[in-house]
């Protein structure tokens, strides 16, 4: 999802440069869309031709994938799997937000916690989550609990690190201003100055972590095969129904991109003062 947005930006810039006022003109935008569509059509055409000349098992044609997607959407398991996956993601991401923000504020604001807990959190950050998955499932169970922990660990760090940085760099002079006007308690300073000052960082952290959360969700489900998109993928994979595998994978990047876009919109809305 990150790769997609950078590619978009890279493709978008030359077209934007052509108009003198800096904003993309109507025709430029249209031609950009046409170009993108042409790339898609080209890739699909090559894929279709290549698929027709190879074993369907190795490379199913786009048409076969589309048929499979239609099948699992309307007669198959996609909807319940997606519902189950979304539930897992919502719970895991929710916990990651609470945990990431809380720890970010505590470590960012209080030096004692920063120096005592910081190194261990960094060590955990440096450990690939996927290596921990088997252990987490043993510890937290093969039910929803274990899977939620995987999603939490996957999406926790961008939220935590951004909150931490935002709180730590909260301008000290604004804290002074609030104190001079009678904000006397630590809670008041957090609520009125430190957290609002860190909010742009926190929101960016949420946007960055949702994609990782989707990855964590898929990983946990692939390991567990107990419902959700991940288990669907494994299930079709072991049956060698390659076109169904691809059809089940397709919703994942879509989900990731849509959620990232939504969080980006929330960010721009709440965070208008930064860009104006």
């Amino acid at each position, binding site marked *: 999802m990150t790769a997609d947005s950078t590619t978009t930006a890279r493709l978008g810039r030359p077209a934007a440069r052509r108009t003198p006022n800096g904003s993309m003109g109507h025709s430029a935008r249209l031609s950009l869309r046409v170009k993108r569509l042409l790339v898609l059509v080209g890739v699909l055409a090559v894929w279709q031709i290549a698929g027709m000349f190879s074993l369907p098992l190795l490379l199913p044609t786009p048409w076969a994938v589309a048929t499979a997607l239609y099948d699992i959407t309307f007669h198959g398991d996609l909807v319940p799997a997606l519902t189950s996956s979304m539930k897992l993601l919502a719970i895991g991401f929710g916990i990651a937000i609470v945990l990431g923000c809380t720890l970010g504020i505590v470590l960012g604001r209080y030096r004692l916690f920063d120096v005592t807990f910081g190194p261990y959190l960094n060590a955990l950050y440096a450990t690939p989550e996927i290596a921990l998955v088997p252990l987490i499932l043993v510890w937290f169970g093969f039910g929803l609990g274990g899977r939620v922990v995987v999603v939490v660990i996957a999406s926790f760090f961008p939220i935590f690190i951004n909150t931490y940085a935002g709180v730590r760099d909260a301008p000290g002079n604004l804290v002074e201003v609030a104190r*001079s006007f009678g*904000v006397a308690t630590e809670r008041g300073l957090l609520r009125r100055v430190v957290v609002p000052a860190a909010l742009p960082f926190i929101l960016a952290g949420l946007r960055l972590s949702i994609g990782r959360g989707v990855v964590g969700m898929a990983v946990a489900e692939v390991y567990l095969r107990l419902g959700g998109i991940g288990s669907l993928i494994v299930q079709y994979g072991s049956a060698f129904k390659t076109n169904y595998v691809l059809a089940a994978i397709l919703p994942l990047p879509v989900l990731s991109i849509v959620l990232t876009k939504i969080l980006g919109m929330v960010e721009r809305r709440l965070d208008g*003062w930064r860009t104006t």
Partner: protein
Amino acid sequence: MIDSSLDVAKIQLRDIHKDFTWKSKGRQQSTRALGGVSFDIQANEFCSVIGPSGCGKTTLLRVVAGLTPADSGQVLIGGREIREPGDDRAVVFQQFGLFPWKTVLDNVKFPLTIQHIPDHEATARAMEQLETVGLADFAGRHPQQLSGGMQQRVGLARALAVNPEILLMDEPFGAIDAQTRTVMQEELMRIWAQSKKTVLFITHDLDEAVLVSDRIVVLSAGPGSVVQEIVPVDLPRPRWEYDVRAHPAYIEARARIWSLLKQNLTVRVSGAGSVPGRSTEPSGSSAP
């Protein structure tokens, strides 16, 4: 209000000491910012504090604001000792100190919200102050959309919104360009003439100090600054109605303060082992 408060100065500083300590290469370092500062400010007086940079002017203001505790000595306001910030004082900060995520109006409302004043009343009072500083049309903007001068007007409006008895101003026009500064000095004098507040005004600008003040406290060079002399400015008010700079009292006060500052600088420069007698004037003023 009848008996003791009449003969007691509004702000009394009693032997204020303040050291700053920090660790450098594992060793405890310490420097004395204030080495026993004492002076009084009368009610409704406009009193400036001037001194070479690094002499602890801002530290002094922070002690009076209750933001930094003094190591020893007392700050009495209306005869009562203070140690914390309070509603009787409001600070105007050098770097404006506006909250970038709040609109201009919400910035001005901020201290009123802290005091739990009902929202409609807070809005009315904040708008009134924005009118005073001429920024009512900018109430819905965010601070970073305004120029430096406008931002400091917001800072002033915010301080005035709580209707404090004392206004503490920490080099308020130091970060503003020269032309705007001149305009704002006059505006400040007009506002002060109407509202009659007790003002403690920190500045490093000699001309600014003489222009706005009733009395000027000259601090000696740090470390361990003390009051070197208090220079009265006997210029008639309102001062925007005539050419203040041509007035004999202006020239006299300016010359006196300049000679005091120059003494400080000479002592400091020769003390540091540099060429004696070669001194630099504080910024924002020209040679007398």
